[in-house]
């Protein structure tokens, strides 16, 4: 797998770190995939996914979101989905230019589904949208995670920070963006999905405590378009599926098939466990070198 690292500037002048992975001998016109990280995930969290997709012929772009973990500008303490949107929009637009394409496949995980769906609906740059444990009702997810609904409370009554999946987050940026965009609410997702002109698929775990499968069924069932978006259910798993390599392997086989538009009879190449372990160490160093190179 060949890897390039580089930085992009968003329209607001902030820096987004990007990694490009490609097969050593890429086939002309092969699939191009952009992977948007879920909450608390760095681009190297998707290393195994990139390895797998590249092994199957794709060129894969990953990025660290603004105001998030990783080496792009900002800190996860200021997390909000509009920063994730700004990051992914910058990356997808650049990818289309670099690869000479008008569109790319977007794989969005967990909370990245909220801006991912909005972007796919508005910008015409996505030809295939694959969601993994994709959140469709952000309000319910926040309520589940925080045991409270802060979106509509008085700004002055917000706590200074809340704990989301081991990360302390200032709720005020989310509260502020909710006054400007309605993406945290399910109807906004339904409307955006209705406006998507590409295949859409959401892989959901049946026992996900972040993504109520009933929300997904309702939201996807409400979408008004000729080819309805599809739900793929993964049994016996929850949101922690992302750290369950055995279930993930089963899901990733199907995700890769969808993202790369492979046929049902096409074999999906699976990297070895050894290769994945190796990649973890290599990419940890790569991240360090990327950040250090920027400082130099």
């Amino acid at each position, binding site marked *: 797998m060949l890897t390039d690292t580089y930085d992009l500037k968003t329209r607001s002048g902030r820096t987004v770190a990007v990694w490009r992975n490609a097969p050593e001998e890429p086939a002309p016109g092969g699939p191009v995939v952009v992977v948007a990280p879920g909450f608390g995930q760095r681009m190297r969290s998707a290393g195994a996914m990139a390895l797998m997709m590249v092994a199957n012929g794709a060129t894969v772009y990953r990025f660290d979101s603004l105001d998030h*973990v990783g080496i792009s500008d900002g800190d996860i303490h200021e997390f909000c989905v509009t920063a994730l949107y700004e990051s992914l929009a910058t990356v997808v637009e650049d990818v289309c230019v670099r690869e000479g394409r008008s569109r790319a496949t977007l794989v969005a995980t967990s909370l990245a589904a909220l801006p991912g769906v909005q972007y796919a609906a508005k910008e015409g740059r996505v030809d295939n949208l694959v969601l993994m444990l994709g959140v469709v009702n952000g309000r319910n997810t926040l309520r589940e995670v925080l045991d409270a609904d802060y979106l509509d409370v008085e700004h002055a009554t917000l706590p200074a920070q809340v704990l989301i999946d*081991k990360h302390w987050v200032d709720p005020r940026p989310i509260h502020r963006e909710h006054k400007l965009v309605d993406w945290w609410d399910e109807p906004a997702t339904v409307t955006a999905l209705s406006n998507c002109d590409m295949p859409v698929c959401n*892989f959901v775990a049946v026992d996900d405590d972040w993504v109520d499968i009933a929300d997904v069924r309702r939201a996807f069932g409400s979408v008004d378009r000729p080819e309805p978006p*599809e*739900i*793929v*259910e*993964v*049994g*016996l*798993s*929850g949101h*922690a*599926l992302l*750290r*369950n*390599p*055995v*279930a993930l392997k*089963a*899901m990733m086989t*199907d995700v890769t098939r969808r993202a790369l538009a492979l046929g049902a009879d096409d074999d999906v190449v699976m990297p*070895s*466990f*050894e290769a994945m*372990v190796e990649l*973890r*160490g290599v990419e*940890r160093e790569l991240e360090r070198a990327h950040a250090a190179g920027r400082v130099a």
Partner: protein
Amino acid sequence: MTVVELSETAELDRLIFEQDTWWALPVEDQAALRRRLTERAARHHLEHNPGYRRFAESVGFDVDTFTDLSQVPQVPTTVFKRTDLRTAQAADCSLFVSSGTSSGTRSRVWRDDTTLQRLVGSLRPDGDIWGDLYRDIDLDEDGATLHMGPSRAEANGVWISYVMTMIEMFTTTTHYLRDGVLHVAKAAEDLRRAVAGDEFVAIAGPPVFVAELLRHLDDRDLRFNAGDRVVVITGGGWKKDQTTRIDPAALRDLAVRTLGLRSAEQVRDVFNQVELNTAFVECEHHNKHVPPWVEVIVRDPADLTPLPAGATGLLSYVDPSATSYPCFLLSEDFGAIEVDRCPCGRRGTTVTPRRRLEAATHHGCALRLATTTRLG
């Protein structure tokens, strides 16, 4: 609506990788869980492993009617020293061997990716058993491991070395055993720098090598005041040879004294052996907890009948987490189990391995069984 087909063992994977609440499960529920998971694993090995199937038939085992996990045919670990007992194709597996220091002959165990991943899962640092050590520290971001052992490449399939290198999955790791030389002074210098930089450091490795580092610090009067920023994780044998055995409590004391740890709770041992596919991790009370998918049965060495909790006998295991070989084992180790007795409050079984079956005890049933059992 499409459904992703998971294997029949998806319930086991969820337990290993996703859940922690099982420490609170009543022992009866843990037992029911084990029974369910073991039956599935036994069916898998009986169907795909002719050697194990013949062995099971020879002892009259019927997977449809067995009533107790102690009836599951357990393979003496010595069998792995003379037979490749594989349920999967060799091409789909990696071969791991024991260090061979205790008995001279090496066990050979074939593991496929799923089997390996599950072993790593039993060690995952976000597990409840590590909770008070790692707290909310993001090991991947803020942690560093000084591994007093070889890299995976140098481990060359030696199991316990390989297992310890799995810590690389979770945190930045430097290996200090290179080309057969343990670089203790370099490890001490890197430790000094990491502690000065307020990094969270895990010192990991076999007890004998970790002890070398601690003695190096002690002999040179190099003292740290690491508080809760350093932990020590040991795994593997406690002796280099028959004359040099390290006492776990003495190692903990030495670690607390030289590193300036807050308490001996920051020193933990992990029990595993090449044939066993789950790691048993010590809690803060230094009891090795058995995850609920594994049944540990202590057997009378004379007739292999199961002994009650508290009694010392031969340790045997029923571990359904291996797909590439039947991890139903009769070991050569003596030890005892306790149930629901640990003051940490975690429910279930704890195990205390005590000593290896010595040559002088060859009259025991285990070895007789081992020498008469034919597989493959």
